[in-house]
């Protein structure tokens, strides 16, 4: 046969099997769990109020002073319940993480912050008014009297002060003015605030008097939350760190201000398939060890033997002071690891088609996702966005992966047009291109988006316009 063909042509991909959606079951299970979590959340809130109702609390509404006190108690119960829910949302509990994803959980966590604070403030104010009216004192005098006379009450007032500090430093406008480390330190005060708030609930609150089932329930709730926090945020990370024994093996510059950190360790096969999920890394070097770094793997772990001995890699851009020092990490530096967290992975898939869109350093989680998430050739589109080619980090690796797996790849570089809300570069935006121009199948695809918040919002808007539903959108922020 003398057919003049080109050498090195890859095998012609076979046609994809019929339109069976292999992710449907996973998707439905995830939605069901999400709904159950929602029900659970509202049920605990209702239960907090029901505890008090069951104790005959509603009778307090017969007098004006009693009404204030009753509302104050209800506000306190609901507020504490919200605080516990917030703790659970931030605890990186596996079921929450796998169902909502880390970002969404933290988003809900943030949303609950202000209501919780208002409820707790209302609790203090209403109780002071109610008790004061009953005793013929003005609210301020009543507050002083409570502080002085009632044991554990001063702790409760301190707790309120701490809660205010935590919520205020977390407000977007305030948070921007301080370094991440300051916000983080203040945020740790939440634990102090919760601990300070607990004693008065059990010593003063008649509702939780010894021997009542309300006391048991409330204790169980608090202990369960504390156990979840300890297990997920302390025990698990320690276990993972000891299990994997990670050390830095190489720091490779990728682009100006961007480095890939390669680490070697044990049992890395257990971290395979995490796709674009992120880990919290702590590099145990002087001045660095206390700083947590959330990065995704930028490549699937490579293992050399059955014991899972191997290496893995993260790719990092110099975003803050902590990240800058990473470029000078020394070989052999021990690394503590937690994770993987988040839903930026195959676990979030609901369709056969997949569209991955990344900007800047947000491209690196896509690299790992592209490597591991299943799709038939032709069912994936990868769109990389940056100011210039140099900003399309890992571009050549991604190009190679796209070639191998049969994904369509677009590089969109150039500045954004001035005054227009778009995620596209000027030229593409002017030509009238949209997400659907690059990925015509987007309405029936899972869309993974990773990039700066404002840019991601613009992509999400475009995706929604193209008919992408909320549960198909998977977004990962990287500008922490």
């Amino acid at each position, binding site marked *: 046969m003398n057919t003049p063909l080109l050498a090195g042509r890859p095998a012609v991909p076979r046609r994809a099997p019929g339109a069976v959606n292999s992710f449907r079951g996973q998707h439905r299970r995830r939605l069901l769990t999400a709904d159950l979590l929602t029900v659970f959340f509202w049920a605990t809130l*209702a239960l907090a109020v029901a505890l008090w109702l069951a104790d005959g609390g*509603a009778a307090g509404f017969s007098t004006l002073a009693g009404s204030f006190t009753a509302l104050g108690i209800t506000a306190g119960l609901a507020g504490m319940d919200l605080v516990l829910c917030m703790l659970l949302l931030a605890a990186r509990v596996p079921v929450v993480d796998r169902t909502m994803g880390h970002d969404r959980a933290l988003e809900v966590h943030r949303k609950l912050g202000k209501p919780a604070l208002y409820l707790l403030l209302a609790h203090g104010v209403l109780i002071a008014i109610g008790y004061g009216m009953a005793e013929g004192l003005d609210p301020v005098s009543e507050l002083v009297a409570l502080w002085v006379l009632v044991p554990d009450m001063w702790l409760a007032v301190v707790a309120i002060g701490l809660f205010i500090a935590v919520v205020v430093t977390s407000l977007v406008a305030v948070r921007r003015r301080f370094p991440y480390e300051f916000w983080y330190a203040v945020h740790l005060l939440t634990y102090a605030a919760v601990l300070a708030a607990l004693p008065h609930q059990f010593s003063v609150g008649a509702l939780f008097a010894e021997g009542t089932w309300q006391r048991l329930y409330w204790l169980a709730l608090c202990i369960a939350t504390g156990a979840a926090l300890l297990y997920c945020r302390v025990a698990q990370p320690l276990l993972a760190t000891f299990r994997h024994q990670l050390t830095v093996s190489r720091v490779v510059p990728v682009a100006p201000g961007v480095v890939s950190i390669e680490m070697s360790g044990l049992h890395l096969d257990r971290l395979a398939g995490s796709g674009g999920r992120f880990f919290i890394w702590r590099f145990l070097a002087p001045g660095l060890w206390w700083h947590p770094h959330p990065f995704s793997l930028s490549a699937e772990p490579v293992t050399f033997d059955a014991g899972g001995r191997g290496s893995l890699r993260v790719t990092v851009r110099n975003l803050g002071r902590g990240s800058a020092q990473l470029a000078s990490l020394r070989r052999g530096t021990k690394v503590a690891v937690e994770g993987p967290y988040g839903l930026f992975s195959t676990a979030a898939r609901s369709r056969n088609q997949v569209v991955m869109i990344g900007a800047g350093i947000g491209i690196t989680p896509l690299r790992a996702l592209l490597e591991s998430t299943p799709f038939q050739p032709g069912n994936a589109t990868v769109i990389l966005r940056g100011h210039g080619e140099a900003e399309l980090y890992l571009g050549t690796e991604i190009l190679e992966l796209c070639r191998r797996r049969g994904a369509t790849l677009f590089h969109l570089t150039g*500045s954004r047009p001035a005054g227009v809300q778009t995620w596209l570069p000027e030229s593409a935006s002017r030509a009238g291109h949209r997400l659907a121009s690059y990925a015509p199948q987007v309405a029936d695809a899972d869309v993974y988006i990773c990039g700066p918040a404002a840019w991601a919002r613009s992509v999400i808007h475009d995706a929604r316009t193209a008919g992408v539903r909320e549960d198909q959108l998977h977004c990962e922020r990287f500008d922490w």
Partner: protein
Amino acid sequence: MRARAAVSAALASAGILLAGWQAGVRVEDTGSGAVGTLSGTDGTAGSRTTGSGTTGSAAKAAGTYAGAVVQTRFGAVQVQITVKAGAITDVTALQLTDAERKSIQISNRAAPLLRAEVLKAQSSKVQTISGATVTSAAYLTSLQAALDAANL
């Protein structure tokens, strides 16, 4: 799916509150109707805003309007809008420049593009023409025939 969560949460919360209240009534034996207002706390779970599109303004004259040519740092741009029943139905860029064309496609897949974006060719500048000119009859009226005739 969200509706399912909202309805279930509302029902569960209402049930729990009702049970709590009933228990409270029995304990104190002085049940008060006033607590009914409290059960409202769970209702918010199910509430959803349903926006109703109201385009109150009178129907604007339908037609096509071209905007002024604006000099941007990327070149001259002019936009044309099409108005139907008071709403903009189409926006087209009339005048575009090729400055700062940076969007490139890396994979070799064929992607949609506008006619203006195709590598151009003028009849006077080409030496040969490709087309589905399969028959001799089609050749006679083709551009290739004209080119060939010029070089005979």
